């Protein structure tokens, strides 16, 4: 363990602010990864490349990049190959992050959801380019609709999300950020894979120091015709088992992006993003009795803009910063089930959601010791559910939110942060529209005990506001309940980060976090009257756990990764008579490990200048699928391998990936088969 370089002449505060950002760039270069192209968010105050080369600062946290919005929280960042691998879905990428539990319902284009630290998908908000992706019907985000091809990084806030986010999440939050255009480039990619996977992407960007614009379009298809064993529901009789091919699981997606960036003089930057996403797909239902004619179509439009402006006299002193953001989102989901093969009871249902929001925050740094942030956000969400032949729902939510945070650095090695937010939600809909006041609080600290080790701790209290679907009802049989109160509960974690850097032989970084989370007034549906159900605040849960991750780089060639999540998720609802208390679908241990080799050979006649290969494994311990603990889903081991050839300075890149090499046929959710072993190939070309 040793420090590699002396601290620079800049103040300690500035170095600390920039340390994580710089470490990413330096580590990327050091690892020889394509991540060298990765850009840090403008809001982190990232210096230019030129700055990075001249600054003489300690390299810290480079191997395990962390989110930049709030240094005191436990976070994990995915970028580079973690997102770029061919055929890799957002769910597959996030499954390797400590604290994350993924539930897939089929192939890469089928519904997949995520929970953090034992929280449900509804308690875990997901943002894409600053736009909240969750809807107001169930508030769960379908990860299959998040395209990775234009994304630069995914920030996973485990347990405590940055206070400026619209919904903080009881287990944390996920923030996906797109690639901002900074150079003139034309690029294209063609992908092929098992089960009819194919994709074509075309894009281009222009830009330089002051501005940039990018356009990209991707079309992909997926047949989803994987084989699975249909036991016909007779698990005690294997004689009638048969191998079936998944039908009506095909999907076609078109996804277009337009991203702009404009430097606002010396004072800041404006970035804009627009996305249009359309997918038409089959809805095959459960594996034993598949739906053959049910189809769904999703159209989503996103627009967002954010600007970050220095507001003091000197735009470079970092004393004052103003951030303004705007988003708009519309989704239109149409489900057609002409044969009533799905358990919704209607032949057609259209669910439309729109949302617009603005936010503003002002950060002041009156001295090197103090940073104060205050802001407000306002949003309007509308939801309509229109089932054919049945009563529908039309409802709105008007939300206003005020937040503030203060960071105090009494000594250079210690940062104390307090943050709070108060949200006010007013709703409109049938019956008695409820209103909610939702306070959230968090206190955190970061103590850099030595140059190579730091400690952090957080204590917070978070809430989940009932969705419009829960308040007003989702269908004729799923009624709403205007008397629902907030789901709420405290969360706490404490962790340590260890960074060891040796550029010549071995580098190791590690992070360990112990957390606890309690949630009460959890909302669950119960039968309330003849043939109908209503949501009620009936549950309580407690989740204790440990998250650990480590990365080592050996001889500048080999990278080893290890991640571990051990949890003890318990249902502690009052009055429960069931003896077992493990929360369903929560593995108590998830282990990930990976090894990769990256070689940068001298260019030969083929101009091969990058050769990489890697393998990784994800193992989930068995988990119960029901509150009584009678149904135990078996252990799951997903092994994958990948290979990359880079030619002519990334002018041509060929990537191959084999997923689920062990052909693990376990499921994430009862009744829904998952694909087995698969191969994926992606050929990318770029012209600069």
């Amino acid at each position, binding site marked *: 363990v040793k420090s590699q370089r002396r601290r620079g002449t800049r103040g300690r505060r500035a170095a600390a602010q920039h340390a994580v950002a710089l470490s990413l760039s330096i580590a990327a270069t050091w690892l020889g990864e394509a991540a060298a192209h990765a850009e840090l968010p403008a809001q982190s105050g990232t210096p230019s490349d030129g700055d990075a080369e001249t600054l003489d600062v300690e390299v810290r946290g480079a191997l395990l990049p962390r989110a930049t919005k709030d240094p005191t929280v436990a976070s994990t960042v995915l970028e580079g190959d973690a997102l770029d691998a061919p055929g890799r879905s957002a769910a597959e990428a996030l499954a390797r992050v400590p604290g994350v539990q993924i539930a897939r319902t089929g192939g890469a284009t089928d519904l997949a959801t995520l929970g953090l630290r034992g929280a449900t998908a509804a308690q875990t908000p997901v943002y894409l380019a600053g736009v909240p992706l969750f809807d107001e019907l169930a508030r769960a985000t379908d990860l299959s609709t998040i395209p990775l091809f234009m994304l630069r990084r995914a920030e996973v806030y485990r347990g405590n999300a940055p206070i400026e986010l619209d919904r903080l999440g009881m287990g944390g939050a996920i923030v996906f950020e797109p690639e901002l255009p900074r150079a003139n480039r034309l690029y294209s990619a063609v992908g092929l894979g098992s089960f009819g996977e194919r994709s074509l992407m075309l894009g281009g960007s222009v830009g330089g120091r002051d501005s940039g614009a990018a356009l990209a379009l991707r079309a992909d298809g997926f047949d989803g015709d994987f084989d*699975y*064993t249909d*036991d*016909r*529901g*007779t698990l*005690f*009789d294997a004689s009638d088992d048969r191998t079936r091919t998944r039908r009506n699981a095909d999907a076609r997606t078109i996804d277009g992006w337009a991203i702009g960036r404009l430097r606002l003089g010396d004072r800041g930057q404006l970035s804009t993003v627009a996305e249009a996403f359309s997918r038409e797909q089959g809805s095959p239902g*459960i594996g*034993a*009795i598949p739906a053959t*004619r049910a189809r769904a179509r999703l159209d989503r439009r996103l627009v967002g803009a954010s600007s970050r402006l220095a507001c003091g006299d000197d735009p470079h002193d970092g004393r004052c910063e103003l951030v303004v953001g705007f988003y708009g989102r519309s989704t239109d989901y149409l489900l057609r089930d002409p*044969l*009533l*093969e799905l*358990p919704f*009871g*209607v*032949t057609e249902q259209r669910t439309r959601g729109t949302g617009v929001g603005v936010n503003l925050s002002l950060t002041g740094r009156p001295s090197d010791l103090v940073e104060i942030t205050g802001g407000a956000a306002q949003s309007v969400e509308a939801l309509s559910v229109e089932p054919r*032949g049945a009563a529908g729902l039309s409802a709105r939510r008007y939300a206003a939110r005020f937040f503030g945070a203060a960071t105090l650095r009494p000594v250079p090695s210690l940062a104390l942060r307090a943050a709070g937010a108060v949200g006010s939600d007013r709703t409109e809909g049938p019956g008695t529209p409820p209103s909610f006041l939702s306070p959230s609080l968090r206190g955190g600290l970061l103590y850099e005990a030595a140059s190579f080790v730091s400690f952090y701790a957080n204590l917070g209290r978070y809430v989940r506001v009932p969705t419009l679907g829960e308040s007003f009802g989702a269908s004729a*049989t799923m*009624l709403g309940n205007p*008397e629902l109160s907030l789901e709420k509960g405290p969360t706490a974690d404490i962790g340590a980060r260890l960074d060891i850097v040796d550029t010549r*032989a071995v580098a190791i970084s590690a992070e360990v976090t112990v957390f606890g989370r309690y949630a009460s007034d959890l909302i669950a549906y119960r*039968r*309330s*009257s*003849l043939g*109908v159900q*209503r949501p*009620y605040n*009936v549950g309580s849960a407690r989740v204790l756990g440990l998250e650990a991750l480590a990365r080592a780089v*050996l*001889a500048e060639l080999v990278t*080893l990764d*290890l991640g571990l999540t051990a949890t003890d998720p318990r249902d502690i609802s009052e009055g429960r008579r*069931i*003896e*077992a208390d*493990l929360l*369903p679908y929560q*593995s*108590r*241990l998830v*282990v990930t*490990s990976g090894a990769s080799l990256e070689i940068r050979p001298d260019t030969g006649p083929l101009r091969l200048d990058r050769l990489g290969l890697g393998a990784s494994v994800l193992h989930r311990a*068995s988990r119960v*699928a*029901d509150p*009584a*603990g*009678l*149904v*135990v*889903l*078996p252990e799951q081991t997903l092994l994958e391998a990948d290979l990359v050839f880079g030619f002519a300075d990334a002018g041509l890149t060929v990537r191959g990936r084999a997923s689920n090499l062990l052909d693990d046929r376990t*499921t994430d959710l*009862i*009744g829904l*088969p998952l694909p087995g072993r698969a191969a994926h190939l992606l050929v990318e070309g770029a012209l600069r």
Partner: protein
Amino acid sequence: MSTSRMQRCTQGATIAWRGSVVVLALTSACNAPDPLPSTGGASLDEGPCGHGLFVITSDYQSTSTAIVDWSGIVHSARLIGSGSSAPGLGAALSGDVVAPTERVESGRIVLIDRFPAGVLSFVDPETAEVLHQTSLGTGFAANPQDYLELGGGVAYVSRYESNASPGAEAFDEGSDLLILDDDGRRIAGRVDLSGALEGADPELLPRPSRMLRLDESVVVLLSAYSRSFTLSGDARLALVDPMTHTVTGWAALPGARGCSALARSPSGARIAVGCSGSFGGTSTPTLDDAGVVVLRRDGADFVEEARFVAAEVLGDPPGFSLAFASERHVVVPSFGRLATSGEAARDDRLLELDLETGSVRELLRSEREPFTIGEVRCGAACGACFVTDADRGRVVRFSITPGGLASPRSLELGDGVGLPPRYLGGY
């Protein structure tokens, strides 16, 4: 690469390998605990009401079963359940498992896994072994409701759902009776019940639920809903000849809708039908079409003897089950209601209907939560009625006296699982 770098590389790899071994060991230790094993079967002598009862406990997500005898003694607390086999696409038993209305005369325990599984499981009560299973789906979610043995290894299964795209497999139309032979192992045919909907709206489907033997015929209760449940008709009773497997007659129950309870009196002279009313999709059920109808068989016809209209007499919609304690007394649960506050706006009640006086007596009331007084099953020859009480996690046994039910006694299953009792079957 220098030697020292190679050595450090090797050391690092060794550490990583050892770490992986430790992690794998941890992984095994952190697996979910195995479900509790079966407590085995029970050998019960056959009495006037058969061998005994089996209790189905469920939270609608998973299921367990137990055996009790007619005196109320628990003989096997965990016979078979959702964890009796490792899950495949589904669980060994889903959370929607019910028991046949009639006693299973072959002495087996038959579990009807309704939706979406559509599977019959035949269990040996003495060994707790699954003898065989039969998938009833024929390509669609058939939602089987009841199983009735006819003798000679032949049985009927009522299938509630219809197949909107039939023709892919044999006997895949649905909303019918499936004919099983070979002791329930093989699908041999179907009984088309559409003839019993003569004169009804053509959009209505038979939607058969419970079945009973009545003399030489089989009585099938038809719920008469449209495919999407947006339209309902008066319930009907279909008479099926088990020799020819054809509908030989039917009777409409005017003003009775949402019927799902059916029972035969000890002498077989009467049957009772319980109807929960029209589904309104609201928080307050309509009671206009709800009640209990008592009928007497008169040749090929049914004659209505008595009607307990829910709106006038019961106050709440009847549940999905009822039973004759004697020729005079019918026992029926009624559904309560849950307020938006989470408190019970109306409790579930277990009611005793006196067919001679028309009076109604309350026997039991739910404690905290409605929709918890479940299935009731009586053995007049054994002098006892049983009812499941999910609210208190128990089964209640009543003694049958000339004046009605008396001496309620609680049975705690003590199965170590704690799922609430919902359904009762006889074998």
